């Protein structure tokens, strides 16, 4: 028995090494299944919680055009949450369980959404930086080994890159506008820069899951590689905006062919992960309120559909 399990594991690894996709009904190691449930649901939860900081500005958007674009964007995030939850469900977890894990605080979501959105420029900065950082991760995930996750990512990436351009365009309008608007944009960059580069997670030497994730092709690049890619891509974009990145150690390193950047405040990172960010409590409170206040609606929808089935059955009889 022992040998057989081992050989299944080996066969599985061989399939991944050959670049095959693993599908829902295929055999997979329990740890692979669990890791995927955790990662896909965290990703889904991030989309759902991510609706809140941007939803915060829908009623105050500065123009009809911006309001419509923001509504559509937040709606896309709900759609992404749906695809991801569906992908997680293929691994044997239900939507109710997923929601329970999110609402109880048992499941994590991206810490970036525990920062407040305090000005309109934050709608630009979140799109440009947060979606920009997310895309770097997600493009990598389109090639991940688990088929349903990879396919969800292909769809999501298309929409995310649109969101990122939209965010950058908000920043561009502010930076080409009045002084007070440009100051608003700079203030947003000051607040979102460090949290954005923290989005790639802890340094490689402190990321215990990286090795296994690389082996299973859940990850193809390390946290630090992805972070570097983000910094390299974003610095020139900030230059076009005429904004300065709040890092005095940021400079081009000719030898490495990359930007060097300053030391991340990991204490802040872990604090927010552990629930001590400014908005952690409020985000979960809002989600719980939506879920709890919706309970009677979900109960009624179920009761109604059961009645419909009964009525049909009676008619036939």
């Amino acid at each position, binding site marked *: 028995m022992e040998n057989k399990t081992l050989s299944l594991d080996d066969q599985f690894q061989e399939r991944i090494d050959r670049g095959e996709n693993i599908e829902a009904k295929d055999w997979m190691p329990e740890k692979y299944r669990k890791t995927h449930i955790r990662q896909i649901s965290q990703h889904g939860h991030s989309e*759902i919680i991510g*609706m*809140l900081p941007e*939803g915060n500005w*829908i*009623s*105050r*958007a*500065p*123009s*009809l*055009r*911006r*309001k*419509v674009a923001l*509504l*559509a964007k*937040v*709606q896309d995030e*709900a*759609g992404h*949450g*749906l695809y991801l*939850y569906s992908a997680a469900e293929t691994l044997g977890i239900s939507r109710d369980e997923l929601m329970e894990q999110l609402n109880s605080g048992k499941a994590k979501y991206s810490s970036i959404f525990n920062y407040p959105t305090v000005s*309109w420029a934050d709608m630009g900065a979140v799109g440009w930086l947060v979606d920009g950082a997310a895309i770097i991760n997600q493009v990598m995930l389109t090639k991940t080994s688990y088929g349903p996750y990879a396919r969800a990512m292909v769809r999501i990436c298309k929409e995310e890159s649109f969101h990122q351009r939209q965010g950058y365009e*908000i920043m561009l*309008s*502010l930076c080409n*506008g*009045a002084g*007070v*608007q440009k100051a608003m944009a700079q203030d947003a960059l000051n607040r979102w820069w460090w949290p954005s580069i923290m989005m790639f997670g802890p340094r490689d030497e402190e990321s215990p899951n990286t090795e296994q994730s690389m082996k299973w092709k859940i990850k193809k690049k390390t946290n630090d590689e992805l972070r570097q890619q983000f910094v390299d891509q974003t610095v020139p974009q900030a230059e076009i905006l005429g904004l300065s990145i709040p890092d005095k150690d940021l400079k081009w390193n000719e030898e490495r062919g990359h930007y060097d950047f300053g030391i991340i405040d990991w204490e802040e990172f872990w604090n927010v992960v552990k629930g001590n960010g400014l908005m952690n409590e409020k985000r979960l409170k*809002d989600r719980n*309120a*939506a*879920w709890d*206040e*919706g*309970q*009677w*609606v*979900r*109960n*009624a*929808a179920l*009761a*109604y*559909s059961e*009645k419909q089935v009964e009525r049909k059955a009676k008619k036939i009889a």
Partner: protein
Amino acid sequence: MLKERLYDYLLHLGDNSMILGQRLGELCGHGPELETDIALTNISLDLFGQVRNYFQAAAAIKGDGATEDSIAMLRYENEYKNTLLVEQPNDDFAHVIVRQFLFDVYHQLLLKELMSSKDETIAAVATKSIKEVNYHVGFSSTWLKRLGDGTEVSHDKMQEAVNKLWRYSLELFKPTDTEIWAAESGVGADLDQLKPIYLEKIKMFMDEATLGLPEATVFQYGAKSGRHSENMGYILADFQYIQRAYPNMKW
């Protein structure tokens, strides 16, 4: 005179959609499940799309640098012409659905008439929007049935919402001077004609949903002529915030 009337009529049409769209926008991310969250946002998007069409036309009539945004966001409270119904708050999902339903049935009847408006822009917007609003009626009337005929709890919540919101419904059909002009000139709909059809449809859907309309209702009017409820000031405080705090800027 004619231009002023047409401008005013476009505001009547746009303001209802805009304030309801704003109310739905407040809900984004807070719905009872993801699917309804997406659907309500969709309805909000449709409504704002229509608003932009109406207000672009209104801005062209007004001239003098007016834009869809100056018309949408830079009026005083008593210059908005939406009804009391659409400014009612999102008290709970029952109120959201009943408010939506009472408006959607009116909106569908109105747009059907406006498709043959003598004003080309209004006719074009109506022709585009009717498909969207047919979907809105389907959404809200289905939820009316589900919740009215769901559980005892949902039935009671829905009946309570109907009892509270029904009093705001008939304002939709009480014509202002501008709406009378619009009906007479063939630009707008004759609300007197639509009212009995509306009442019949509402009654039919309510029956199906096992809900009743309250008897002896004292109907509320006035918002279409600028006399709004206390809700309106808070809606506008959000809605106009950036335009008021940072005047004359591009976003």
